[in-house]
Protein backbone atom coordinates (compact mmCIF):
# COMPACT_ATOMS: atom_id res chain seq x y z
CA UNK A 1 0.00 0.00 0.00
CA UNK A 2 2.83 2.43 0.86
CA UNK A 3 4.62 1.76 -2.44
CA UNK A 4 1.33 2.26 -4.23
CA UNK A 5 0.75 5.61 -2.52
CA UNK A 6 4.21 6.83 -3.56
CA UNK A 7 3.72 5.57 -7.12
CA UNK A 8 0.45 7.50 -7.29
CA UNK A 9 2.06 10.66 -5.85
CA UNK A 10 4.92 10.44 -8.34
CA UNK A 11 2.58 9.65 -11.21
CA UNK A 12 0.27 12.48 -10.18
CA UNK A 13 3.14 14.87 -10.66
CA UNK A 14 3.56 13.73 -14.27
CA UNK A 15 -0.17 13.39 -14.99
CA UNK A 16 -0.83 16.91 -13.76
CA UNK A 17 2.30 18.70 -14.91
CA UNK A 18 2.65 17.48 -18.49
CA UNK A 19 -0.78 18.72 -19.69
CA UNK A 20 -0.01 22.09 -18.09
CA UNK A 21 3.46 22.44 -19.55
CA UNK A 22 3.52 20.82 -23.00
CA UNK A 23 0.91 22.98 -24.78
CA UNK A 24 2.45 26.20 -23.49
CA UNK A 25 5.97 25.22 -24.47
CA UNK A 26 5.35 23.13 -27.61
CA UNK A 27 1.83 23.27 -29.02
CA UNK A 28 1.65 27.06 -29.04
CA UNK A 29 3.16 26.98 -32.53
CA UNK A 30 0.58 24.55 -33.93
CA UNK A 31 -3.10 24.95 -34.71
CA UNK A 32 -5.35 22.39 -33.01
CA UNK A 33 -8.30 21.22 -35.21
CA UNK A 34 -11.70 22.39 -33.94
CA UNK A 35 -13.18 18.89 -33.27
CA UNK A 36 -10.17 18.08 -31.06
CA UNK A 37 -10.71 21.31 -29.09
CA UNK A 38 -14.38 20.39 -28.65
CA UNK A 39 -13.48 16.88 -27.57
CA UNK A 40 -10.96 18.15 -25.00
CA UNK A 41 -13.55 20.64 -23.80
CA UNK A 42 -16.11 17.91 -23.11
CA UNK A 43 -13.72 15.62 -21.29
CA UNK A 44 -13.89 17.26 -17.83
CA UNK A 45 -17.72 17.21 -17.75
CA UNK A 46 -17.73 13.63 -19.05
CA UNK A 47 -15.17 12.40 -16.48
CA UNK A 48 -16.98 14.10 -13.62
CA UNK A 49 -20.34 12.65 -14.72
CA UNK A 50 -18.75 9.23 -15.05
CA UNK A 51 -17.27 9.37 -11.54
CA UNK A 52 -20.23 11.02 -9.83
CA UNK A 53 -23.16 8.94 -11.11
CA UNK A 54 -21.97 5.52 -9.85
CA UNK A 55 -20.75 7.02 -6.55
CA UNK A 56 -24.23 8.30 -5.66
CA UNK A 57 -26.46 5.77 -7.49
CA UNK A 58 -24.58 2.67 -6.30
CA UNK A 59 -22.67 3.54 -3.09
CA UNK A 60 -22.48 -0.13 -2.08
CA UNK A 61 -21.72 -1.41 -5.60
CA UNK A 62 -25.37 -2.23 -6.29
CA UNK A 63 -27.92 0.14 -7.83
CA UNK A 64 -30.03 1.78 -5.09
CA UNK A 65 -32.54 4.38 -6.27
CA UNK A 66 -34.55 5.03 -3.11
CA UNK A 67 -34.98 7.36 -0.12
CA UNK A 68 -32.79 4.95 1.82
CA UNK A 69 -29.79 5.88 -0.31
CA UNK A 70 -28.22 8.71 1.74
CA UNK A 71 -25.77 9.58 -1.04
CA UNK A 72 -28.57 10.11 -3.54
CA UNK A 73 -30.66 12.16 -1.10
CA UNK A 74 -27.71 14.33 0.02
CA UNK A 75 -26.87 15.01 -3.63
CA UNK A 76 -30.09 17.04 -4.04
CA UNK A 77 -29.23 19.95 -1.68
CA UNK A 78 -25.60 19.89 -2.85
CA UNK A 79 -26.72 20.18 -6.48
CA UNK A 80 -29.12 22.99 -5.65
CA UNK A 81 -26.42 24.97 -3.82
CA UNK A 82 -23.90 24.30 -6.60
CA UNK A 83 -26.28 25.64 -9.27
CA UNK A 84 -27.19 28.68 -7.15
CA UNK A 85 -23.70 29.65 -5.92
CA UNK A 86 -21.17 28.01 -8.30
CA UNK A 87 -19.02 27.73 -5.16
CA UNK A 88 -16.96 24.67 -4.20
CA UNK A 89 -16.98 25.62 -0.54
CA UNK A 90 -20.74 26.16 -0.13
CA UNK A 91 -21.53 23.00 -2.08
CA UNK A 92 -19.12 21.02 0.09
CA UNK A 93 -20.71 22.41 3.27
CA UNK A 94 -24.30 21.84 2.06
CA UNK A 95 -23.57 18.26 1.00
CA UNK A 96 -21.71 17.38 4.18
CA UNK A 97 -24.39 18.98 6.37
CA UNK A 98 -27.12 17.01 4.55
CA UNK A 99 -25.16 13.78 4.95
CA UNK A 100 -24.48 14.47 8.64
CA UNK A 101 -28.22 15.04 9.26
CA UNK A 102 -29.21 11.91 7.31
CA UNK A 103 -26.80 9.81 9.40
CA UNK A 104 -27.77 11.44 12.68
Amino acid at each position, binding site marked *: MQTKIYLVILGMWAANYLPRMLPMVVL*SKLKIPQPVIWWLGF*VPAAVLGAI*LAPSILMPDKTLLISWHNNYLVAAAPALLVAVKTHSLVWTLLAG*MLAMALLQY
Partner: protein
Amino acid sequence: MSRATFLAGAKKSIPIMLGYTPLGLAFGVVAREQGLAVWQAALMSLTAFSGSGQFIAVGMLGAGFGVSAILLTTFLVNLRYLLFSASMAPHVGKLSTLAQSIVAFGITDETFTLNMSGFDRQAADRDFILGVNICPHLSWIINSALGAAVGSMIPDINRYGVNFALPAMFIALLVMQIKDRITLAVAVISGLISTGIALLTTNGSHIIAATVIAATIGVILCQCRQKSTS
Protein backbone atom coordinates in the same frame (compact mmCIF):
# COMPACT_ATOMS: atom_id res chain seq x y z
CA MET B 1 13.48 38.81 -10.27
CA SER B 2 11.42 41.82 -9.26
CA ARG B 3 10.15 41.55 -5.73
CA ALA B 4 7.56 44.33 -6.18
CA THR B 5 6.01 42.62 -9.21
CA PHE B 6 5.99 39.26 -7.44
CA LEU B 7 4.26 40.82 -4.41
CA ALA B 8 1.71 42.53 -6.69
CA GLY B 9 0.83 39.10 -8.07
CA ALA B 10 0.77 37.63 -4.58
CA LYS B 11 -1.64 40.35 -3.43
CA LYS B 12 -3.96 39.63 -6.36
CA SER B 13 -4.01 35.95 -5.37
CA ILE B 14 -5.27 36.48 -1.80
CA PRO B 15 -8.91 35.55 -2.64
CA ILE B 16 -7.63 32.32 -4.20
CA MET B 17 -5.52 31.59 -1.11
CA LEU B 18 -8.60 32.05 1.06
CA GLY B 19 -10.69 29.88 -1.25
CA TYR B 20 -8.09 27.09 -1.10
CA THR B 21 -8.15 27.08 2.71
CA PRO B 22 -11.36 25.06 3.25
CA LEU B 23 -10.70 22.96 0.14
CA GLY B 24 -7.18 22.12 1.27
CA LEU B 25 -8.47 21.23 4.74
CA ALA B 26 -11.18 19.05 3.17
CA PHE B 27 -8.61 17.34 0.96
CA GLY B 28 -6.40 16.65 3.96
CA VAL B 29 -9.28 15.13 5.90
CA VAL B 30 -10.36 12.95 2.96
CA ALA B 31 -6.78 11.89 2.19
CA ARG B 32 -6.30 10.83 5.83
CA GLU B 33 -9.65 8.98 5.64
CA GLN B 34 -8.40 7.02 2.62
CA GLY B 35 -5.15 5.98 4.30
CA LEU B 36 -2.57 8.67 3.47
CA ALA B 37 -0.19 10.00 6.13
CA VAL B 38 -0.11 13.74 6.89
CA TRP B 39 3.06 14.38 4.94
CA GLN B 40 1.93 12.17 2.05
CA ALA B 41 -1.15 14.38 1.71
CA ALA B 42 1.10 17.46 1.74
CA LEU B 43 3.51 15.90 -0.75
CA MET B 44 0.70 15.13 -3.16
CA SER B 45 -0.51 18.72 -2.84
CA LEU B 46 3.01 19.88 -3.68
CA THR B 47 3.53 17.67 -6.74
CA ALA B 48 0.02 17.52 -8.20
CA PHE B 49 -1.56 20.87 -7.15
CA SER B 50 -4.94 19.84 -8.51
CA GLY B 51 -8.03 19.77 -6.29
CA SER B 52 -10.19 17.62 -8.56
CA GLY B 53 -7.29 15.34 -9.54
CA GLN B 54 -6.21 14.78 -5.93
CA PHE B 55 -9.74 14.15 -4.61
CA ILE B 56 -10.23 11.57 -7.36
CA ALA B 57 -6.83 9.98 -6.76
CA VAL B 58 -7.28 9.50 -3.01
CA GLY B 59 -10.89 8.37 -3.51
CA MET B 60 -9.77 5.73 -6.00
CA LEU B 61 -6.81 4.72 -3.79
CA GLY B 62 -9.22 4.14 -0.92
CA ALA B 63 -11.56 2.17 -3.19
CA GLY B 64 -8.68 -0.12 -4.18
CA PHE B 65 -8.20 0.87 -7.84
CA GLY B 66 -4.89 0.12 -9.58
CA VAL B 67 -2.19 2.76 -10.06
CA SER B 68 -2.63 3.00 -13.84
CA ALA B 69 -6.43 3.45 -13.61
CA ILE B 70 -5.94 6.18 -10.99
CA LEU B 71 -3.35 8.05 -13.05
CA LEU B 72 -5.27 7.76 -16.31
CA THR B 73 -8.48 9.03 -14.68
CA THR B 74 -6.61 11.95 -13.07
CA PHE B 75 -5.00 12.76 -16.39
CA LEU B 76 -8.38 12.70 -18.14
CA VAL B 77 -10.14 14.91 -15.60
CA ASN B 78 -7.26 17.37 -15.90
CA LEU B 79 -7.20 17.45 -19.70
CA ARG B 80 -8.65 20.92 -19.31
CA TYR B 81 -5.14 22.03 -18.32
CA LEU B 82 -4.16 21.41 -21.95
CA LEU B 83 -6.69 24.05 -22.93
CA PHE B 84 -5.59 26.47 -20.19
CA SER B 85 -1.95 26.03 -21.13
CA ALA B 86 -2.67 26.43 -24.84
CA SER B 87 -4.71 29.59 -24.27
CA MET B 88 -1.94 31.13 -22.14
CA ALA B 89 0.67 30.26 -24.76
CA PRO B 90 0.22 33.31 -27.05
CA HIS B 91 0.65 35.64 -24.03
CA VAL B 92 3.87 34.15 -22.68
CA GLY B 93 5.81 34.05 -25.96
CA LYS B 94 8.40 36.50 -24.59
CA LEU B 95 9.23 34.28 -21.60
CA SER B 96 12.10 31.78 -21.89
CA THR B 97 11.20 28.11 -22.28
CA LEU B 98 12.47 27.52 -18.73
CA ALA B 99 10.29 30.31 -17.35
CA GLN B 100 7.32 28.95 -19.32
CA SER B 101 7.80 25.48 -17.88
CA ILE B 102 7.96 26.93 -14.36
CA VAL B 103 4.87 29.15 -14.58
CA ALA B 104 2.97 26.26 -16.23
CA PHE B 105 3.39 24.22 -13.03
CA GLY B 106 1.07 26.59 -11.16
CA ILE B 107 -1.87 26.54 -13.59
CA THR B 108 -5.18 25.76 -11.87
CA ASP B 109 -8.74 26.77 -12.74
CA GLU B 110 -8.41 29.78 -10.46
CA THR B 111 -4.85 30.98 -11.15
CA PHE B 112 -5.46 30.57 -14.89
CA THR B 113 -8.56 32.77 -14.72
CA LEU B 114 -6.75 35.42 -12.68
CA ASN B 115 -3.66 35.45 -14.90
CA MET B 116 -5.68 35.61 -18.11
CA SER B 117 -7.74 38.53 -16.80
CA GLY B 118 -4.47 40.43 -16.29
CA PHE B 119 -3.19 39.75 -19.81
CA ASP B 120 -5.92 41.99 -21.26
CA ARG B 121 -4.44 45.05 -19.58
CA GLN B 122 -0.70 44.39 -19.57
CA ALA B 123 1.86 42.03 -21.08
CA ALA B 124 2.51 38.77 -19.24
CA ASP B 125 5.19 39.18 -16.58
CA ARG B 126 7.10 36.19 -15.21
CA ASP B 127 7.34 37.48 -11.65
CA PHE B 128 3.70 38.57 -11.51
CA ILE B 129 2.52 35.14 -12.70
CA LEU B 130 4.81 33.47 -10.16
CA GLY B 131 3.28 35.59 -7.39
CA VAL B 132 -0.23 34.63 -8.51
CA ASN B 133 0.70 30.93 -8.71
CA ILE B 134 2.98 30.30 -5.74
CA CYS B 135 0.95 31.82 -2.88
CA PRO B 136 -2.21 29.76 -3.54
CA HIS B 137 0.01 26.71 -3.97
CA LEU B 138 1.54 27.29 -0.51
CA SER B 139 -1.94 27.76 0.96
CA TRP B 140 -3.03 24.50 -0.70
CA ILE B 141 -0.07 22.52 0.70
CA ILE B 142 -0.26 23.91 4.23
CA ASN B 143 -4.01 23.43 4.53
CA SER B 144 -3.81 19.87 3.15
CA ALA B 145 -1.32 19.05 5.90
CA LEU B 146 -3.46 20.77 8.54
CA GLY B 147 -6.60 18.96 7.39
CA ALA B 148 -4.85 15.60 7.48
CA ALA B 149 -3.39 16.30 10.93
CA VAL B 150 -6.66 17.52 12.46
CA GLY B 151 -8.75 14.90 10.65
CA SER B 152 -6.83 12.06 12.24
CA MET B 153 -7.55 13.43 15.73
CA ILE B 154 -11.34 13.32 15.38
CA PRO B 155 -12.87 9.87 15.95
CA ASP B 156 -15.63 8.63 13.61
CA ILE B 157 -15.28 11.65 11.36
CA ASN B 158 -17.92 10.37 8.91
CA ARG B 159 -20.59 11.34 11.46
CA TYR B 160 -19.98 14.90 10.29
CA GLY B 161 -20.72 14.07 6.67
CA VAL B 162 -17.07 13.80 5.57
CA ASN B 163 -17.99 10.71 3.54
CA PHE B 164 -19.98 13.04 1.27
CA ALA B 165 -17.12 15.55 0.78
CA LEU B 166 -15.94 13.79 -2.36
CA PRO B 167 -19.32 13.51 -4.14
CA ALA B 168 -20.16 17.11 -3.11
CA MET B 169 -16.86 18.31 -4.58
CA PHE B 170 -17.59 16.51 -7.85
CA ILE B 171 -21.11 17.96 -7.98
CA ALA B 172 -19.69 21.50 -7.67
CA LEU B 173 -16.94 20.90 -10.24
CA LEU B 174 -19.45 19.37 -12.65
CA VAL B 175 -21.91 22.24 -12.30
CA MET B 176 -19.08 24.69 -13.07
CA GLN B 177 -18.34 22.75 -16.25
CA ILE B 178 -21.89 22.94 -17.57
CA LYS B 179 -21.80 25.91 -19.92
CA ASP B 180 -24.44 24.82 -22.45
CA ARG B 181 -26.98 22.10 -23.22
CA ILE B 182 -24.54 19.90 -25.11
CA THR B 183 -22.14 19.81 -22.13
CA LEU B 184 -25.08 18.94 -19.87
CA ALA B 185 -26.09 16.15 -22.26
CA VAL B 186 -22.49 14.86 -22.34
CA ALA B 187 -22.32 14.75 -18.52
CA VAL B 188 -25.67 12.94 -18.19
CA ILE B 189 -24.87 10.44 -20.97
CA SER B 190 -21.47 9.81 -19.42
CA GLY B 191 -23.01 9.23 -15.98
CA LEU B 192 -25.54 6.74 -17.39
CA ILE B 193 -22.95 4.83 -19.45
CA SER B 194 -20.56 4.78 -16.50
CA THR B 195 -23.21 3.43 -14.11
CA GLY B 196 -24.25 0.82 -16.67
CA ILE B 197 -20.69 -0.40 -17.17
CA ALA B 198 -19.98 -0.29 -13.42
CA LEU B 199 -22.93 -2.61 -12.79
CA LEU B 200 -21.49 -5.14 -15.26
CA THR B 201 -17.74 -4.87 -14.52
CA THR B 202 -15.53 -4.39 -11.48
CA ASN B 203 -12.16 -3.36 -12.94
CA GLY B 204 -12.64 0.42 -12.89
CA SER B 205 -12.75 0.77 -16.67
CA HIS B 206 -16.19 2.40 -16.51
CA ILE B 207 -14.89 5.93 -15.94
CA ILE B 208 -12.52 6.02 -18.89
CA ALA B 209 -14.85 4.13 -21.26
CA ALA B 210 -17.81 6.39 -20.45
CA THR B 211 -15.67 9.54 -20.80
CA VAL B 212 -14.35 8.66 -24.25
CA ILE B 213 -17.79 7.64 -25.55
CA ALA B 214 -19.63 10.66 -24.07
CA ALA B 215 -17.03 13.25 -25.21
CA THR B 216 -17.18 11.79 -28.73
CA ILE B 217 -20.98 12.03 -28.69
CA GLY B 218 -20.54 15.68 -27.65
CA VAL B 219 -18.33 16.39 -30.69
CA ILE B 220 -20.94 14.75 -32.96
CA LEU B 221 -23.67 16.93 -31.38
CA CYS B 222 -21.51 20.03 -31.97
CA GLN B 223 -21.04 19.15 -35.62
CA CYS B 224 -24.79 18.56 -36.03
CA ARG B 225 -25.54 21.92 -34.47
CA GLN B 226 -23.01 23.66 -36.68
CA LYS B 227 -24.55 22.11 -39.82
CA SER B 228 -28.08 23.07 -38.77
CA THR B 229 -27.14 26.72 -38.14
CA SER B 230 -24.89 27.30 -41.17
